[in-house]
Structure formats: structure tokens, C-alpha cells
């Protein structure tokens, strides 16, 4: 998608953090040499177009409870149906089809590990497929965004 110059600068400059001051959008406008209305207008437009998923806090998932990465090896003929069922679980917050013997990958998040274990049992019982359960051991990097300097 095409971004105008101000939109690109807005994303590059504030994707890692925005000012924690009483009028943040005004402070952002000053940093970008435009008006507060310009900032609010661009943010609203970028959000509506989907270029921004949101403006606000990104929470550390693990602090909110337990999470794990799960993979299923789903026979191709059943993939659509199993994927749709998995997406229905409120505990599933990412669900990706990937090119591998393990072809369905998703993240489970819940209040505690016991809850996740119950969901894993439920998935196994419902699908007849054995989930590969890969909880995080150590985080070497969490998502803080990545450079967009080549973004056009």
C-alpha cells in the first residue's frame, strides 16, 4: 500500500513508542512539524486502512497468564475444517497455515497452564490430532517492531 510522506514518518518514528505526556498527539505533531489534527487524521486513516493495527499499549502476554505455541499436523483434506474450529477457541490469538508437515500453528493464551492443558486435551479429543506443545523457555527478543527505513 502507498503511504504519504507524513504517514511514513509517523509510523517510523512512533512504532516503537509514543510520548507519555498529557497531550501525546500534540507532542507527536511537534516532532513531525505538522498539526495535531494532521496526526489524528493520519492515525485514523492508517487504522481504517489497516496499516496500523492500533495506537496504544502492547502488553506482555506472559504477564497476563500462560501461553504456548502449538502445532498440528493436519491432513490436507481436513485443513480448512480443523483450522476453522481452532480459530473458534477464544484462547487462540494467532493461527497460521505454514508449509510443513506441521501445517497449522497457533498461540494459546489463558489464565494459567492448567487451563491451556485442558484446551490442548480438548483439541486432541475433537480433532484426533496430537498437538505439538512448545511453551517458551527463554525470550531472546520480543516483538518491538523492526526497521522500516526502506518502506515506500
Amino acid at each position, binding site marked *: *500500500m502507498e503511504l504519504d510522506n507524513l504517514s511514513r514518518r509517523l*509510523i517510523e518514528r*512512533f*512504532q*516503537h513508542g*509514543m510520548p*507519555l505526556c*498529557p497531550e*501525546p*498527539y*500534540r507532542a507527536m505533531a511537534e516532532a513531525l512539524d505538522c498539526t*495535531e489534527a494532521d496526526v*489524528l487524521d493520519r*492515525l*485514523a486513516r492508517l*487504522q481504517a*486502512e*489497516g*496499516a*496500523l*493495527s*492500533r*495506537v*496504544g*499499549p*502492547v*502488553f*506482555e502476554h506472559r*504477564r*497476563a497468564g500462560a501461553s504456548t*505455541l502449538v502445532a498440528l499436523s493436519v491432513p490436507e483434506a481436513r485443513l480448512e475444517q480443523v*483450522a476453522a474450529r*481452532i*480459530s473458534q477457541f*477464544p484462547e487462540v*490469538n*494467532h*493461527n*497460521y*497455515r*505454514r*508449509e*510443513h508437515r*506441521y501445517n*497449522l500453528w497457533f498461540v494459546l*493464551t489463558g489464565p494459567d497452564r492448567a487451563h491451556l492443558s485442558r484446551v490442548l486435551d480438548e483439541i486432541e479429543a475433537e480433532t484426533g490430532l496430537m498437538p*505439538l*506443545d512448545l511453551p*517458551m*523457555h*527463554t525470550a*531472546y*527478543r*520480543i516483538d*518491538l*517492531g*523492526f*526497521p*522500516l527505513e526502506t518502506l*515506500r
Partner: protein
Amino acid sequence: MSACISPSDADLARRLVALTEAGLPLVEDPWGWLAERLGLSPDATLALLARLHADGAIRRIAAVPNHYRLGYRHNGMTVWDVADDAIERLGPAVGTLPCVSHCYRRPRKDGWRYNLFAMVHGRSAAEIDGYRAEIRALLGDACRADDMLVSSRILKKTGLRLGEPRSRMR
């Protein structure tokens, strides 16, 4: 440094998640909007956000881009079988590569030998292949096998949800 947050902060944090998981309202005074709903003063709200951020409960407060929509349509989950005695040294090194957005150590399992995961994103298949080569060069002999699982479809992607279910299908 203490990683604990007080019970009242924990309770406020839960309400904060519910209020902001879909984003702050785009109004001139977003903290005032939040303060009103949390029953705090605007100053106390800013202080709470700063505390949760310093503590690590909030990773960042930002304009959060959707890289897929911005043209970064190729993502690869690179997975590596790294020698156990080298992973705590090499994991952080992989994590600091600019092309890597997430990097985690995860357990090996029967039928799954890979213990290091690094996500890479790019605008073409060639670009993410290049990143994979970069990681492989860094790991050297400590890596015994690797693979890259590319995503052919995003079936469900949402932010953290503790309150109302909210999903976006693509």
C-alpha cells in the same frame, strides 16, 4: 529489580487491557479518556502506564503497524537445532539481528528437534531467504539442522484478549 506489581496495579492492568486492547481512542486527550474509565486522575493514569512499561508488563505504547498491510507479506518462522551448550550464548545474538522480530528458545519434543525459533519478515521470498542465510552464518557449527516454515495464510490474528472476544479474519 523487582518484577512484581502490586495487587492494585494488577487489577488496574487487567482493566487497562480490556479498555485499550483494541487501541486508544484518537482524541486529543487519550489519557483523560482512560483516566475517567479507570477512576484515576490523568496524572495517576500516566504514572500507571509508565510503571507498567518500566516493569515490563507493557512492552511499548506506540502506533502499532500491521506489517502485512505495509507490504511485508512474507514471513518465515526459522527453526534451528542448536547445541544445548551454545544456545544461551547464540540465542541472544540471533535476537539482536535487525531482521529478527521474535526469537525464543522452546523445548525439543519427540518428532521436533528444533530448540531455537526466530521470526523474519520481508517483502519477497528472496528477502527472507537472505535473512535465513544470515542467521545460519551466525550460528555456524553449533547448528545441526534448520528449517523455515513460511506462512501461506493468516487464518486468525488478534491482539491479546482477556475481555470481549474480538477477532479479525483475513
